[in-house]
């Protein structure tokens, strides 16, 4: 019993990230509207970024901006600062994500100019004809 409670407290946020990822994944393949697919892709991406950032968390750790004189003296302890490496990688991922969103919205506008709709099945009907 004790171990089960400990397991739940230690892992519950990983389970919520999996739920978020499932929501995004379902919207990407189950919804017919293209803007809904794009929103699902953004939700998927945010859940992955959330997972990466949460791997760097340390209990009782401070933000990764250290005191300059303390850093020059070399007395910063690694256990009291959260891991900065996932933050750097995910900073890049967020900015790349917004440019991907911009390109996708441009393609959506082009599709709307060509076919007059954003629903996947109506576009498929118009292509068949």
């Amino acid at each position, binding site marked *: 019993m004790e171990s089960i409670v400990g397991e739940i407290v*230690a*892992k519950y*946020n*990983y*389970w919520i990230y*999996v*739920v978020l*990822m*499932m929501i995004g*994944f*379902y919207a990407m*393949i*189950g919804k017919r509207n293209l803007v809904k697919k794009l929103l699902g892709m953004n939700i998927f991406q945010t859940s992955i970024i959330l997972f990466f950032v*949460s*791997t*760097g*968390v*340390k*209990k009782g*750790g401070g933000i*990764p*901006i*250290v*005191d*300059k004189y303390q*850093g*020059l003296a*070399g007395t*910063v302890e*690694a*256990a009291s*600062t959260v*891991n*900065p*490496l*996932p*933050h*750097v*990688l995910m*900073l*890049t991922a967020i*900015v*790349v994500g917004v*440019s*991907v969103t*911009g*390109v996708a919205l*441009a*393609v959506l*506008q*082009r599709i709307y100019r060509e076919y007059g709709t954003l629903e996947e099945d109506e576009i498929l009907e118009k292509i068949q004809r």
Partner: protein
Amino acid sequence: MKHLALIATLATGALLLYGTKDFPAWGDPQAPASTYLSPHYIEDAVEETHVPNIVTAVLGDYRGYDTMFETVVIYCAGMAVVSVLSRKREEE
């Protein structure tokens, strides 16, 4: 189609939930992600670059290639939007 999507989503979710069994506990300072490279960054970045914000130091100096190609990706996104969407006013 919707049922197929639901089944695929649930299968993937179940697989990932099974995978969380092997993760370290949340907030563990001894997790593998926090013990390999990042202590070097936290302890030595200020001495080597004189930048107190470690994230900026790693972003601009240790991983400069990453940031450079990320800038190139944004540049290419701008060019792609212009070339996909651009048109003259009279075409309508």
